[in-house]
């Protein structure tokens, strides 16, 4: 089933509709897909995310989540229940001083009975591996841990879609890995549709599909490997290859017969292989 559908969506932060942040985006995301949205600053990728859960309403065109139109105010609540969103700054999305109270915030808002909230907190904290910090305070956690709590806060609403709007941008490499592990597991094990907005190319490799945005338009769309194979085109959008893929390309240019690789492991294997042949 189609989880998210954009039909020629235009959006502008200005009232007269000039300087559009999104300029005619049409795309479709299937349920269970793991989609990475790439693009440089100001390419419209965060706007795209906010349009999905009705934080923004399109200027023209239509956004549908599980068939519900986001411009229909009566559906706003139902759409947000289905499409949870994690933001960039972990400090700015926590409402309570105690982890379990913060996770409870979402379920409380949608009127879940008390006993059920307890179960949902258990489920959400287990899913992100933070059960032992249940009674702790966010101020004492690391960035990665705080962001996992934010993910738990969204999970407790039991959404079908998880949107991560540059949620790893402010984290150190370790925190980034923690968050990515959780997100990948949610996608593989719980069948969650994931829309990951990022400017880290390495993260996009873990997705099933990558969408590249430039000046409010979708300019590339396909499997991450396909996208990264078109490195010259990527460069025109000011995007770089994942580190391993970049090293691989440079080696090839220097005349080493290495096969295409995207991750460090693939690259290492490729180099070994070519050395053995030589």
């Amino acid at each position: 089933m189609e989880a998210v559908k954009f039909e020629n969506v235009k959006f502008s932060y200005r009232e007269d509709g000039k300087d559009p942040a999104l300029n005619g985006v049409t795309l479709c995301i299937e349920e269970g897909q793991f989609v990475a949205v790439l693009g440089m600053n100001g390419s419209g990728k965060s706007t795209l995310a906010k349009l999905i859960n009705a934080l923004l309403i399109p200027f023209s065109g239509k956004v549908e989540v599980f068939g519900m139109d986001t411009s229909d105010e009566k559906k706003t609540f139902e759409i947000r229940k289905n499409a949870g969103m994690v933001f960039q700054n972990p400090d700015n999305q926590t409402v309570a001083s105690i982890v379990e109270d913060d996770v409870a915030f979402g379920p409380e808002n949608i009127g879940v009975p008390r006993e059920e909230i307890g179960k949902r907190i258990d489920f959400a904290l287990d899913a992100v591996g933070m059960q032992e910090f249940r009674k702790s305070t966010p101020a004492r956690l690391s960035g990665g841990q705080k962001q996992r709590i934010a993910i738990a806060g969204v999970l407790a609403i039991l959404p079908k879609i998880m949107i991560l709007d540059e949620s790893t941008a402010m984290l150190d490499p370790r925190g980034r890995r923690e968050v990515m592990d959780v997100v990948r597991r949610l996608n593989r094990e719980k069948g969650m549709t994931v829309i990951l907005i990022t400017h880290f190319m390495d993260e996009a490799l873990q997705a099933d599909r990558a969408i590249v945005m430039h000046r409010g338009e979708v300019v590339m769309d396909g499997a991450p490997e396909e996208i990264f194979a078109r490195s010259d085109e990527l460069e025109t959008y000011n995007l770089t290859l994942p580190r391993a893929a970049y090293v691989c390309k440079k080696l090839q240019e220097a005349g080493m017969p290495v096969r295409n690789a995207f991750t460090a492991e693939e690259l290492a294997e490729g180099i070994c292989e070519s050395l053995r042949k030589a």
Partner: protein
Amino acid sequence: MLNDVAFGQYYPAKSFVHNMDPRAKIVLVIAFIVAIFLAKNFLGLAAVILFLILVVILARVPFGRVLRSVKMVLFLIIFTAILNLFFYSSNSELHILWQWKFITISWEAIINMLFLALRLFLLVMGTTILTLTTTPVSLTDGIESLLTPLKWIRFPVHELALIMSIALRFIPILTDETNRIIAAQKARGADFETGGLIKRAKAMIPVLVPLLVSAFRRAEDLGDAMDARCYSGAKGRTKYKKLTFTWRDLLGLLLLAGLITGVVFLNIYFGGKFDVIGWFVA
């Protein structure tokens, strides 16, 4: 250190008082303050002191820890006491000890000073025990629950409680931010340590402006995050935390009712605070 503001001066321990319902504790502190001001003589205050000692023992908080919290307001207590000593006028010429122009010191003034200082001291002790044994979070829960009846006159109880808990949540974040901005301004040659009061206050402006701007940006982010988590006000909202009134709370309230009765009894049978003067002066 400032990072732990979320816990205030909470002293973690497992005790009778720690386990009490925050609502009961708030009501008890108010009743305790009433008892302090009901007492008309030193015997009444002695009863209050005995009660306080009992509570500190039950709370398993070291006496030193409680006294340390009072130290901060000691200056205020001494200041008020001294003002009272000089400006309290006596009705009886016999009781005047020393006089210079418009300043007089009388027996009454000394008694009054001691009485006032003791009252203030007990007041601070009582509220300190509340904050030592209750986390700010459960205090907020308690206040919200106690204010619930005000919903009838459309007072926004839930909103007020949410504002309080978000404020608590953001204290450590904004403290961190302030320290960062101060460091950044120092790195650019800002001087916060020298000069008079006015100069120092002016030096804080380049700290406060960026802090305010960032606070607004955070507020906007938080608003989006709350919207995304389906927040739509108090309507149709459930509450996960449940406060339960137990035998401990009942016992506490009964003990305090006993204290108030005792103080009233002592008031009736032992007269006012100035009666002690009779022991020294005819």
